[in-house]
């Protein structure tokens, strides 16, 4: 019984995370091949990859609060995979924009990045995730030591940048970007709460 449980929470969960990570890209590819990405396929690719990037950022940021709140330590080994899937989808998202939407028109792309706040925000998110993806290996983790933890707090900035990107590009119906923003705020808020709780309970513990 104990062995089965650990299989589900170990290898089983690893397979599940991988399948959920690959499925959206696989479905997009499938839809693309049979020409069912809708009337505006480039827009469909942009929106879908953007959605999934933000979803995986939130999933990665949810690992620590879930572990702390519910003791779900078995999630921790999958945080890196979730983060790398977020990076995978942000690359597809940016690649679609640069290569398909604007067809490598660098002057327009540069103008967008500097002049259009929502694109500035989105690009900031990408820049935050780049060093995290590069230093996601155990080797880099060892080499950077304590600074690795500090560097990887950029994930918070990436999450905020992604949500702001979505909020700022939306025309009128803010419901969907607000759902992401509220989830992100909850995840970052629990971190602040943990920090505050730790600070206030420490003296009490030393007394006993």
């Amino acid at each position: 019984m104990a062995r089965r449980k650990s299989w589900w929470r170990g290898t089983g969960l690893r397979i599940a995370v991988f399948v959920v990570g690959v499925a959206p890209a696989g479905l997009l590819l499938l839809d693309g091949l049979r020409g069912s990405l809708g009337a505006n396929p480039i827009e469909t690719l942009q929106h879908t990859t953007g959605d999934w990037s933000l979803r995986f950022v939130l999933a990665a940021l949810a690992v620590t609060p879930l572990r702390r709140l519910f003791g779900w330590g078995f999630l921790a080994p999958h945080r890196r995979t979730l983060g790398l899937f977020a990076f995978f989808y942000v690359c597809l998202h940016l690649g679609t924009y640069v290569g398909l939407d604007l067809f490598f028109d660098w002057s327009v792309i540069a103008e967008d990045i500097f002049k259009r706040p929502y694109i500035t925000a989105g690009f900031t998110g990408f820049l935050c995730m780049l060093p995290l993806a590069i230093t996601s290996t155990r080797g880099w983790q060892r080499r950077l030591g304590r600074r690795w933890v500090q560097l990887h707090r950029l994930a918070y900035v990436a999450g905020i940048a992604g949500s702001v990107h979505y909020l700022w590009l939306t025309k009128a119906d803010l419901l969907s970007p607000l759902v992401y923003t509220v989830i992100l705020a909850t995840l970052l808020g629990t971190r602040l709460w943990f920090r505050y709780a730790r600070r206030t309970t420490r003296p009490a513990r030393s007394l006993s």
Partner: protein
Amino acid sequence: MLIRVRRPGDIDPREITDEGLYLRRREFLRSAALAGGAAAFAAAGAPTASRAARLAPGDLAALTGLVPSPFSTDESPNSFEDVTSYNNFYEFGTDKEDPARHAHTLVTDPWSVSIRGEVERPGEIALEDLLKPHALEERVYRLRCVEAWSMVIPWVGIPLGDILRRFEPTSHAKYVAFRTLYKPSQMRGQRRRVLDWPYREGLRIDEAMNPLTILAVGLYGRVLPSQNGAPLRLIVPWKYGFKSIKSIVSIELTRRRPATSWNVSAPREYGFYANVNPEVDHPRWSQKRERRIGEFRRRPTLPFNGYAESVADLYAGMNLRKNF
């Protein structure tokens, strides 16, 4: 009497798995895994284009005796499928696929339009009576959305000016205000206040009287599909698409400039005029180029959407950067 004393290691009877459940445990695991997998796939599939049954031209009543128009472009029109599956009609939801999915709930027959304000002969008129005296024309127009995509659509309609003249506008009529049906029971998008319902639009009287401006009742030789604004919508081809209000129930001629929905919603982003203008960017994106649906590379956007010859002099002397 037997009194059982529980020791710490004892199992509470409530914790013992029911035998039936125990025997079906593999089944349970399998269905749980399947449900989880299915949910993940459903979530993954949802954002991509809907694969629901598409509307076919044969599903709609044919319009006959159409007169071709010299105002038509000879560019090749977008497919019926593109035109009817990729729509902005927030009354049925804010995703492009939502109108095709949800507009079937709209009841378009019977339909009447109220014509009021600065006219000698105001009244509520049934749609058939509104259209009866006029010949239906086919007008193949470019449509440029404010979101920087465009299509070419073979509309069927009547010049708005011809219709308005029947009601004899007074000399005080300076503007025309239009209103869409407000019926949340049929238009599910109206159940949330995404915009200040009902949708309202307006034109200056000379814009309304321009021969390019039509009230459309069909496309591709058939009556309008609901997702395209059935049964009666405005088409102003030199303005961004949001000016071309759909499912019209009210036309009022006014002395003052009427409030218009997108302008009320975001005045910095959507002006009253909303003429297609590559020189004036939307605050959040460029309007210099557009993606014609069905094409890969973006193409340059033309001033007044390519209709400058017919309409530019309506705005002679006006600062179009200020009056965007």
